[in-house]
């Protein structure tokens, strides 16, 4: 028997009337549906929310940069790999923004009455650059593939070290996101480390590019280990991690990669903040605004949008 198909609709033609196996048209779903988001004892909702936003913004902005490689990487396998890494980070960001919204709803930007946009999307698409708390390492342009690998190596080594400690957080959501993230980022760090080694020990040109890329991003390294007031607060109440406590471990791991690659640790001065402010305070470079414009333009044009 031939199934009746409405030939007026392209979609019906594709589906044969059964839309159950298709991913479009699914409504927004709360990524923390049924998860216990009660605040742990002795933790201020605002501090926890700001901390979640910091970790979420690192992942969101890095994810946006990595996804720019889609269809532009040296070959199809690297296209797929970088898109996969971007997707893992986007997923971490979504959970962390949802956790932030539950911890302090007053931080979620107000949208028109009746807007179906969920809190984590409101945070991603309707905050200004000054409200983003990501470290500046993740916001600059990708540069070439060598520079992208150098940045991914530093970023994933740092974030994996943070998340290994964050797994012990007294906040059940943060702890769960960290345990999951460790598993995912193990693949990210290995990917970046292997490419770093391959490029550094490849041709003169590949070595020149990866070493040049490392030198380019190195001034933003120090900021990764500077403790922000919010990070001190959450570390004291054992729901978060003081990034200064992972500096030695990250150095040892990077040294392993550098020595096998025959690369010296760059000797360049850290990029200063402005009046003592850096990424964690909402102080960003010009590239960040352009990145946000592209990330946010569609959502901002449709504040009542349903995707």
């Amino acid at each position: 028997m031939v199934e009746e198909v409405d030939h007026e609709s392209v979609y019906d033609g594709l589906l044969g009337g059964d839309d159950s196996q298709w991913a479009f048209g699914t409504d927004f779903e709360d990524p923390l549906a049924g998860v216990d988001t009660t605040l742990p004892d002795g933790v201020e909702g605002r501090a926890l929310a700001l901390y979640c936003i910091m970790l979420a913004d690192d992942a969101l902005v890095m994810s946006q940069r990595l996804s720019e490689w889609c269809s532009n990487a040296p070959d199809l396998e690297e296209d797929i790999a970088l898109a996969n890494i971007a997707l893992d980070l986007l997923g971490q960001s979504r959970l962390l923004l949802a956790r932030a919204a539950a911890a302090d709803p007053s931080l979620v930007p107000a949208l028109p009455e009746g807007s179906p946009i969920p809190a984590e999307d409101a945070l991603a698409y309707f905050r200004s650059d000054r409200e983003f708390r990501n470290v500046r390492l993740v916001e600059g342009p990708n540069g070439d593939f060598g520079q992208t690998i150098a940045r991914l190596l530093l970023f994933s080594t740092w974030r994996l070290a943070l998340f290994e400690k964050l797994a012990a957080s007294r906040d059940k959501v943060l702890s769960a996101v960290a345990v999951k993230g460790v598993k995912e980022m193990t693949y990210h760090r290995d990917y970046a480390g292997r490419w770093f080694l391959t490029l550094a020990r490849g041709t003169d040109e590949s070595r020149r590019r990866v070493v040049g890329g490392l030198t380019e991003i190195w001034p933003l390294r120090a900021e990764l280990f500077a403790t922000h007031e919010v990070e001190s607060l959450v570390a004291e109440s054992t729901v978060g991690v003081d990034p200064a406590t992972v500096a030695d471990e990250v150095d040892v791991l990077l040294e392993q990669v550098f020595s096998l690659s025959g690369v010296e640790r760059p000797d360049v001065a850290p990029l200063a903040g402005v009046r003592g402010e850096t990424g964690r305070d909402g102080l960003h470079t010009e590239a960040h605004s352009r990145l946000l414009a592209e990330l946010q333009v569609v959502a901002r044009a449709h504040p009542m949008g349903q995707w």
Partner: protein
Amino acid sequence: MGSPVSVLDRARGLAASVTDPEMPMLTLEDLGVLRDVEVDGARVVVTITPTYSGCPAMATMRDDLVHRLHDHGFDDVAVKVSLDPAWSSDWITERGRQALADHGLSAPGPAPSLEGPVALTLIPRRRSLACPRCGSSEVELTSEFGPTACKALYRCTSCLEPFEHVKEI
């Protein structure tokens, strides 16, 4: 709808029959994503655990669970997320592994231990795999990342066919 036990069994059976949108040879039960099914009065509560943080199939899985239960008379269905413990490829059942192999996909080996610091491995881990088409163990890794978050890409150097391997995580 009969005694409470049979209602629960029916709801469980229905939820367990829903398949993964990206690997339809696997049910959500065989993938290890379906964690619990409870019946509370007229309401069915299904608990699932995401495979990867950014898994885009989660929303579809929820919709499919709700639709399947609605279609069989359960009007009030809630789908909850459980993040702890995190999903592990070890949760894929034996039946699931067989279904993967039957469809030309290579099933994961044991997931890495979560004890102690995570080792940096600059030389790709060697998995002892067999080509799902010809059975040869002469295979090589093309990429640790594949068409979905959970798969790596391999190539068989005997029959020269590419295949996908579900990653250990």
